[in-house]
């Protein structure tokens, strides 16, 4: 989820990729700062809806992580 309005400057994962807790997924740049979006849980990346250069709104869903059971 985007923490504030800004531009996506990096997408470090691909759909279906397996990620661990704390892994950096996406970087949104706004207010001269990089805001790092990290995985809260381990699982696989699903519904990745943004690419580099996209403008996103605060609280916009950027991707989801499917946890163990669904893999």
């Amino acid at each position, binding site marked *: 989820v985007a923490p*504030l*309005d800004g531009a996506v400057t990096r997408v470090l994962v691909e759909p279906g990729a397996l990620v661990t807790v704390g892994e950096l997924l996406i970087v949104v740049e706004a207010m*001269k*700062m*990089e805001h790092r979006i990290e995985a809260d849980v381990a699982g696989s990346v699903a519904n990745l809806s943004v690419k580099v250069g996209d403008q996103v709104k*605060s609280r916009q869903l950027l991707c989801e992580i499917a946890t163990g059971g669904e893999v």
Partner: protein
Amino acid sequence: VSQAIASRVDTASEAFVANKKYMEAYVAKIRGVEKRQLETELSYLPRAREKGKLLPRERLALLLDPGAPFIELNSIAGYNMFDDQEGRYSGGKLIAGIGFVSRRRCLVIVWNYAIKGGTIDSVNVKKMLRLQEIAFRQKLPVVSLHESGGGNLSKSSEAMDPWAAQLFVEGGKIYGQQAELSAAGIVQITVSHGNATAGGAYQVALSDYIVLVRNQTQLFLAGPPLLKAGTGEEASAEELGGAEMHATVSGTGEYLAEDDGDAVRIARELCAQLPADPVLPHRALPIEPPAYDPDELIGLYPENRRMPVMMQEIIARIVDGSRFDEFNAALDAATVCGVAKIGGKQVGIISNNGPITPAGANKASQFIQLCDQKRTPLVFLQNTTGFLIGTAVERMGQVKHSAKLIQQVANTKQPKITVLVGNAYGAGNYAMASRALKPDFVVAWPSARQALMGGAQAGQVMKIITSIGWARKGIEPDEKMRAGLEGQSKMIEMGLEVLSESMFCSARMMDDGLIDPRDTRRVLSFLLDVALEARRRKPQALSYGAQRL
């Protein structure tokens, strides 16, 4: 309530090592400027010895209590301005700071006559005015070791003011403020070590105590050359304004010293006659060091300033026991408020982990009110890229809420001390108490950047505005125009990067000095003592000041 911060910093990590390297190199660059300034002074040593004089820093060393702390202020004032060369002539011809003389905390001003004769230029005037402001506000006695060649009419002023007319008028404020200080009961003790002509003569004469130095003091309204030009009279400097003449005939001076060392000794004795400093209650209590080593502050700020910094990590290396009672942490994590102790003194800390939102502004405003209510001084650890922008926050009243925070910060009755840690941009710069809101002191880390907006953003804004202008006038830009705009925007970006840089800003006294991050706790504790003591000092006001009758 007060919980110790649990640090997550790994000092062996790649990031910490890289940050440390960046900051150490930056600190070394600042020390390099100070070193070149000192070398200029030292190069004067043979001539000083010939005349039987001490160097300015030798005089300072004799004046201060041995082993007591001394904080130098605005050490790199004027760096790379006018005719300065990488710091060789920096410092505004003044070595100044707060230290102890005969166990009295004093504002100490030593004229650096070894740099261009200690002549007065716009840097010197600006630094003097700020030092006097500190003396007023902190009610500190002023000890000056004076020796100045007077006004510097060469390259060292504004380009538009070649004859120093503005400087002359602006510089006059120094004399008015000296008179006001005396009337306010703030004692000024001055040693006249050498040349004190015209304006310089008033800097000496408007002091409450004057110590003259035999065969060195030359104190007069007009020296031999001007006298010859003005009236045709010929007289020697000694006849016109020597120490002996003033001590025995004119009465412009109370004490006659045999040499520099003797004069400084007399100044120390005069300080010993002043009322003792107030004793702060915390002094009786044991002081707990931070749980994390303050030296680790060297590795916490990244060169890439877009990287987020957890300010709790910095707070953990500044406050007693690393204990921080965070206020409303869950409400808006981007604005950090909380109570802690620094060297035994309770403080309210306000800092930034992200842009200031309406909720963050309100949280900080409420926190300031609560600190005011319990007479707790405020410490601002500034790392702000500004107030959050956008339709959503404008609709929430961002302008109104940010204005309110500025009101709180400007009008709090408690001491406020600001450390510019990193980003200090936009209205956030004001709201987080930098110079504009008159905190008692502002010190800056080398990583500090002060500007109305980021360079890249300013360049971008220029491009957008110009493109809109073209569209409105129906101009279809060709390749050349586009390239020109691109170049202009790049220039703005680069220009703002230079203008916001910490050494550039400190040269222009947009702070009271740059500090090594590792000294942050010590500096804050010292400055808090100054500001808290000021509230207990009771100078005896006199309506016209102490006059020489």
